[in-house]
């Protein structure tokens, strides 16, 4: 409604040639009003439900707060506690290991599958769909399927290993094995996404380059190394950013598959923050963990921003 009137005002004021400067200023003002009224519903929701809580969380991170009553200001107490909390360091290390492992595996696999399924192949649409399909599975469901596959008592993998006369893997009692299970289920869900981005990138590489290289006698591996991989640089860079963001925020799958265990072998910063907030009810402490998580994400975003300054990411 305001859009209509403001637009009409803009149209009406644009006509009289007399005082051009004031009318132009008024037109600009009205366009600003219109702009804000279109963006408002979104900005109000983001402001009220994300930015305000973000500010409040920053305040809470300097408080002792159980979730009820008034938070008590304790300065940097929570942050000081974090520095001497072994679980925090473990969660930070786990998150880093998990992020690097899922990044390398799912990007490598995504690229390999994109190259494999780029050129015509009988049944190609079916293959692509199957690789891509796990993307619709919720983190909770993948975690539960992961339990059925990797459980050391009822899981199908260990049953198969025993049937083949091999030793069973203690997926629940061994920390490394538990982490491997989490990583594998994540890679299962993520590879299709990476493949799609790489496939889109491959569309942009003209066949002339390959023909020329073939005439020069370059083998398949050489063509991949000197043409495909360098020209997919932008896709790789983009996927690097997205995969780090996703991996750093992993929660659902870990929460359901391992609950952070055994011990704290698969505790991530996110699951650590959750249990501090809603199990031990140290919500100020949980807010401080959240702030660390945020600072790490922003630092990463800042680094990629600097590296990518030549390119406009928002365009």
């Amino acid at each position, binding site marked *: 409604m305001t859009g209509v009137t403001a637009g009409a005002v803009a149209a009406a004021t644009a006509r009289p040639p007399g005082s051009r400067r004031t009318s132009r200023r008024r037109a600009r003002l009205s366009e600003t009003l219109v702009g804000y009224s279109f963006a408002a519903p979104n900005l109000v929701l983001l402001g009220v439900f994300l930015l305000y809580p973000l500010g409040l969380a920053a305040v809470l991170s300097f408080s002792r707060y159980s979730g009820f009553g008034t938070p008590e200001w304790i300065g940097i107490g929570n942050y000081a506690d974090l520095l001497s909390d072994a679980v925090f360091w473990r969660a930070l290390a786990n998150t880093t290991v998990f992020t690097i492992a899922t990044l390398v595996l799912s990007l490598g696999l995504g690229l390999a599958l994109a190259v494999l399924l780029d050129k015509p192949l009988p049944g190609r649409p079916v293959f692509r769909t199957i690789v891509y399909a796990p993307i619709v599975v919720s983190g909770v*469901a993948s975690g539960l399927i992961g339990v*059925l596959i990797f459980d050391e008592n009822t899981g199908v993998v260990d049953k198969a290993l025993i049937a083949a006369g091999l030793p069973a893997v203690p997926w629940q009692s061994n920390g490394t094995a538990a982490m491997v299970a989490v990583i594998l289920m994540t890679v299962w869900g993520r590879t299709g996404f990476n493949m799609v981005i790489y496939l889109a990138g491959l569309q942009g590489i003209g066949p002339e380059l390959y023909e020329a290289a073939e005439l020069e006698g370059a083998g398949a591996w050489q063509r991949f190394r000197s043409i495909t991989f360098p020209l997919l640089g932008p896709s790789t860079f983009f996927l690097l950013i997205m995969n780090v*963001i996703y991996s750093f925020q992993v929660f659902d799958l870990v929460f359901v598959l391992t609950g952070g265990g055994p011990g704290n072998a698969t505790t991530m910063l996110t699951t650590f923050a959750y249990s501090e907030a809603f199990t031990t009810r140290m919500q100020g402490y949980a807010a401080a963990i959240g702030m660390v998580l945020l600072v790490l994400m922003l630092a990463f975003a800042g680094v990629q921003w600097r590296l990518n300054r030549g390119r406009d990411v928002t365009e």
Partner: protein
Amino acid sequence: MTAATEQRVRTRAAAPARAGHVHSRRRRQRATTIVRFVIAVVVCVVMAFPFYWMVVVALSPKDDLFSTVFKLWPSRLTLDNFTGLFASYDIGTWFGNSIVVTVFVTVLGVVVNLLAGYAFAKLRFLGRSALFFAALATLVLPVQVTMVAQFRLVTDLGIYGTYWAVILPTAATATGVFLARQFILGIPDELLEAAKLDGAGSFRLFRSIVLPLCRPLIAVLVVLIAMATWNDFAWPLIALKQDFLFTLPIGLLYLQGQTTPDFTQIMALALIALLPMIVLFLVLQRYFVQGIARSGIR
């Protein structure tokens, strides 16, 4: 005459050699295709296995899970897990809750993100870039950063214990604004200028020119938002504590949290939760892939 014969002779002589070359090349190509096909089959068997196993467990008798025998199919097919599931839990309510939340978030999300996308793409106003950037930056904001404060906020607003506690905080997304702005940027300015000269205001421009062109965008937004909401877990886990408000992912967790969790029933429910997404995916696969390829954001 002699030249023609000479040439014919030369051609005939060269032909077998060339044919042989083409032949070997084609054979090599066929070998490559076969190798590629075999690799693709192996990879896809692995990728499809979790889906297969989910279905197998959901249709197996409970004893299969605890038998130590390695078997890749049910000892007998049964629907007991589904009937048991529906007898013990109010699955209909959870399913209905998922539908309500998904429909509300999707409709609200499409509307607010489209409007904002138009503003950020086609209207010039003070602070536009800064605001767009702020909206985009929420992409790197995990819910675990704000959950404690959000929990307090929804309690203070008096919407804790209602669907709104989930709907309102998830409706506006960085993904949605980004996609909408990208798409609307592609609408030529000349089209809008022409209508503006005819005296159309911004709202009419939006409704009569931008909106009709945005159909593919809306399809992509619907698909991505609906999927994200249907599968959403971390925030609903905090905001929906009463079992009559549970969405399906929270219901799944509730089943897993029982003293003796029944994984055959859990897989039955997981399958029920997955089916609408599989249907949506198969029908609108084009938009899934388009949306993800264009934004790179799930």
